[in-house]
């Protein structure tokens, strides 16, 4: 066990060993240690201090980098979220709209059509923000243009507008013309 505390090799120890056998560092005379090790110990202490300084700097640098990376992740995440949201509005709309068309085209009662969950989901999307509402209205107009999908009631509700002349009430082709014209005048198409 004592060997683990042994300072070896050293001239003091060698000298002591020659006379007294093995010794431990605590038993070495202070003045002799200072004489033989003083300069190197001071150098070592300076070196350790310097090393500690570098270590601190390195740690600080790593911490800063970690913070920076975290910030960048947040920025990247948020930009990705925005991209997803933008994509999602159109995609979600079409997804729900297709379900709605598939599951309600055989119905004549507008009440049954309106109460379909996909219709409600789309109306819910439109109420999230003015920008999303505008986008939803645009998608509705595009679907009217494409396949005369029955969005007239939803458009009346969302826009609070009535671009249809009274003599054209209930005529889908005329309703489509009127709403498409309205969409163009609003810069939506």
């Amino acid at each position, binding site marked *: 066990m004592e060997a683990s505390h042994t300072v070896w090799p050293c001239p003091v120890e060698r000298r002591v060993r020659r006379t007294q056998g093995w010794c431990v560092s605590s038993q070495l005379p202070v003045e002799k240690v200072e004489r033989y090790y003083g300069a190197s110990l001071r150098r070592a202490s300076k070196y350790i201090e310097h090393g500690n300084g570098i270590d601190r700097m390195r740690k600080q640098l790593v911490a800063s980098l970690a913070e920076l990376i975290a910030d960048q992740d947040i920025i990247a995440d948020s930009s990705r979220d925005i991209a997803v949201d933008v994509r999602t509005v159109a995609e979600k709309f079409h997804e729900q709209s297709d379900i709605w068309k*598939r*599951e*309600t*085209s*055989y*119905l*004549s*009662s*507008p*009440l*049954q059509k*309106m*109460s*379909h969950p996909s219709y409600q989901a789309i109306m819910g999307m439109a109420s999230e923000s003015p920008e999303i509402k505008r986008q939803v209205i645009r998608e509705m107009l595009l679907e009217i243009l494409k*396949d*005369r999908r*029955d969005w*007239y*009631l939803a458009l*009346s*509700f969302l826009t609070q507008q*009535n671009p*249809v002349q*009274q003599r*054209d*009430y*209930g*005529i*889908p*082709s005329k*309703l489509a013309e009127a709403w498409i014209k309205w969409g163009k005048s609003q810069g939506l198409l």
Partner: protein
Amino acid sequence: MRMIAFRSFGLIQDDLHRMIPKLRTAQWTVNSPYDTEYTCIAWAACRTRKVWWPWDDPGFYWPPGFAKLPVGSPASIDDFAIMFEKKFGYRKCATKEFEWGFQKVAIYANTEGVTHMSRQCLFGEEWLSKLGVYEDVIHSDVRDVEGSMDPNAREYGEAVQYMKRTWPRALMTACLFRCAWAALKFKIYRTVVPWEI
């Protein structure tokens, strides 16, 4: 431009069997193309140009002089029965069976309100139903398009009211000619374009 589509019979069958389960075991044929311009109420009234519904919105037509309901209200059987009585000369009757000299319509409803209408062929026992914007079909029994009474099931419910009018009255409203013209257009197209397109 009205949107008309001549879909393949397989596609029509898939759609209708999925949405109206009773048609799977019923005898039915397609009588007109997919048309977004009119739905079942207009077709029961022998019209093919407007979407009829008693809601106060530009999206729907309802004959002048008859009360319109606020958007979102369930439509009652009387809303339709009164209009069909005063405008087209129908009278309420008890049975669905074909009666010589009379044309009949059926009003379907679920627990919420009216959902659909069918019209009996002028000289036959079959019934004509325009299924939303989908095709107009001829089915052998009025009950072939019935479904659940639960509004959440999104089916037609049951035929709850029958009405009839005389043949002369039907001819006065040009019903026969409109129906014949609609059917003829479809048949001409089908002779040119085969079913499986």
